[in-house]
């Protein structure tokens, strides 16, 4: 299998370990990732100007289409943004015409063939659980974990079509097959608060706090993320005194999956050594 790899803006520097571990497991799963000269997915611009955000997305899709590739991203915000962009591109004629024109000046065009996959939906739907199960060489021994569904992949279902928006199960299924014990968590599908971290830090961290509180009350040791922004947000807990006290660690799905597939800690870019007592 072969995909155009869209890391998004945050992975290359802010969250390198996610990129590394993602590439590592994809290598292990014999999925080839192609790097293209992508720009921002447009997610940050959607608050400023619809046209910009849609153009940004479609431009990336056009680049992928040129290579005849589908696009895979580990970031749920990018994923959601792409889906939304496609929706607007399909349904707002005036916008589509404008954007196609701009793309043309760039020597690009998009016919709408490119598909967008998120890491999770790819593993669950395209790669297949059974096939993945065979790749698991060192399954975990029922460590307790809760999963954080990112909003932008999950909602609105009508646009993303990712999973049942109220009772999703893709993520649980995936952590279960690598031997972790997924616990019920009431705030599993709620927002982590990252989108307004830049503008309204107080509120953003308040949300994070309530999530961490409920999560740690479930008795789980880890919060599992499959979204760049969620993980970044959870990493902020080390910066705030009153958040540090919660005995729960945010982990990246790619890292635990990688471990279960027997990859080394360097391959997965894990700095914090006591994570799963590596």
């Amino acid at each position: 299998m072969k995909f155009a790899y869209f890391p998004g803006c945050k992975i290359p520097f802010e969250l390198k370990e996610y990129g590394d571990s993602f590439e590592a497991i994809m290598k292990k799963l014999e999925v080839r990732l192609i790097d293209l000269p992508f720009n921002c997915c447009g997610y940050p611009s959607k608050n400023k100007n619809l046209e910009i955000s849609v153009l940004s997305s479609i431009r990336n899709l056009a680049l992928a289409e040129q290579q005849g590739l589908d696009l895979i991203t580990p970031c749920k915000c990018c994923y959601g943004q792409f889906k939304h962009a496609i929706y607007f591109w399909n349904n707002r004629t005036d916008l589509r015409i404008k954007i196609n024109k701009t793309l043309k000046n760039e020597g690009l065009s998009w016919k709408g063939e490119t598909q967008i996959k998120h890491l999770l939906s790819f593993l669950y739907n395209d790669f297949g659980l059974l096939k993945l199960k065979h790749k698991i060489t060192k399954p975990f021994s029922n460590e307790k974990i809760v999963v954080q569904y990112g909003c932008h992949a999950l909602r609105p279902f009508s646009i993303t079509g990712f999973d049942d928006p109220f009772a999703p199960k893709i993520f649980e299924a995936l952590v279960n097959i690598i031997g972790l014990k997924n616990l019920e968590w009431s705030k599993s599908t709620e927002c982590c608060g990252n989108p307004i971290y830049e503008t309204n830090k107080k509120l953003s961290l308040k949300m994070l706090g309530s999530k961490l509180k409920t999560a740690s009350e479930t008795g789980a040791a880890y919060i599992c993320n499959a979204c760049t922004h969620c993980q970044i947000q959870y990493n902020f807990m080390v910066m705030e005194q009153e958040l540090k006290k919660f005995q729960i660690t945010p982990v990246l799905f790619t890292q635990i999956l990688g471990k279960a597939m027997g990859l080394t800690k360097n391959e997965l870019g894990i700095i914090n050594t006591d994570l799963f007592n590596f």
Partner: protein
Amino acid sequence: MIIKALTIAISLSLIGFLYQFFSFIKTNKTFDKKKWRMKNLSIKSFSLNSILQTKLFKAGKIRWLMHLLVASGFLYLVIFHALDDVTSSYWFQYYQPTVDPFQFLRNLAGIFVLIGCVGFLCRRLFFFKKLKKRKIQFKGLFSILLILSIILSGFLLEAVKIISEPVFMEMVEEYSDIDEGTDLVDLKIYWEKNYNAVFNEPLLITPEKLAIGKELNENFCIDCHSPIKSAFISKSIAKALKKPSIWLNYHRIDNLLYYVHYFLCLLIIVSLPFSRLFHIFLIPVASLEKNLKKEQLDQTLGYINTATLYACTNCGFCSDVCSVFPNFLITKNINTLPHAKIESFKKLMNSAPVESKALYMLQSGNGECTYCHKCTDICPSGIDLQNLWVLLNQKLSLKGYQDNYTFINNLSLEKWAKLAPEKEKTSSTQGKTTQLADNVDSFENCIQCTICTNVCPVVEHDIDGNDYTPQQVLNLLRLGKKHLATGTRMVWNCLTCFSCQESCPQGIKVADIMIELRNNGNLRADALKLENFTKAT
């Protein structure tokens, strides 16, 4: 007199250096040095980048080669040629500018620099990937042209000396006991034949005369005047100059050229701290810094950051890879792109008068940055650009240029309501529009069940700070108060988590409307800011 000029030039450039240094200090009082960490310095990247230009190598092989040619060649010329009185003649007692290997090497170095500079020029003029198409001009040709002209003048000078009769006569007087007579003629013949010298009077060449000339040459000249062929460039230029030679010799153009050449050298010395050439000194400084995450940025020392501005050679690689390039395509705000931001930033630092509109553009441009670190990764000068953008934001907000969220947050909702655009006073909601917020059909089916409000995490966690609930925002729209709605905290705090939209039993696109309102709010805020600033100037 030449020495005087030299001393003046050097002192000028020294003053320049000092001036720059202090301006860095001055403009960065705001940074508290306590947070400074030694571990934020990286010796490795420092040495690698400043000596081998590794980052440049990553950025582009050919460009790296060109740069290497220029650097090595120019370095050689400066040390062994410009400063020969204190270097070469001191190290090698047989040194003469006209003996090999020096003569040969000089030409070689010259040609290196020449090729390099031409390469630079071509790239700047023809090979900008995305940007060229959009006629974005890059400054900084000055230094390249300067160097180029120095080298050319050098070659010319040499060539003219070669053909020059007066120079020949001076040498004869100085280094030989040949006086007027046949010997001189023989030597002239030999030189005309082998050294491309050109003489006024017609000389008829015979083997005997040549033989004698050769002998004389071996007696007097050969020790300090290697055969001309090693000066392979000048020689060919000299050949080309045969025709106008008489005129040239008569007017002693060689002296003129000498002064030109010398003057240009002085010029380079003076302009050093102010031209792009400054990067020679600052790239090491820039590469000394580790790239830090946004959260640790206060651990860096401000003046190093802003000093690194001058390590920029304005090569434009950053803008080629910039993540928010599409934003520029729409907003047409050049200050979205790194290479332009650096220039404006410099202006800002030099406390040169910048009119507020430009600063506003800079702010809105810089606001687009997603901190994807691509520019920093590619920057050949090893500048931590991303770090600079954060500083830029701080400085601008200190000057009162905030992002729209802060702008609207600082206004009370009443104030904001007063700033409604005229046309919204009586809203007749007819006519087609793709804007959800303008089209009653997109929200009039609301049955007031408050589910959207109840599932909203912002309302849940922000009971005191929040003003209206999602459903009340919809009601504001229905009551024809769109502008008011664009200013509500609800709209600006919305996480776009889409819970409301997913849950609405009437299928109203609540979150999409929120986002749209935020867009409209941004538009209005931008307009207002612009008004204020244009008023200000």
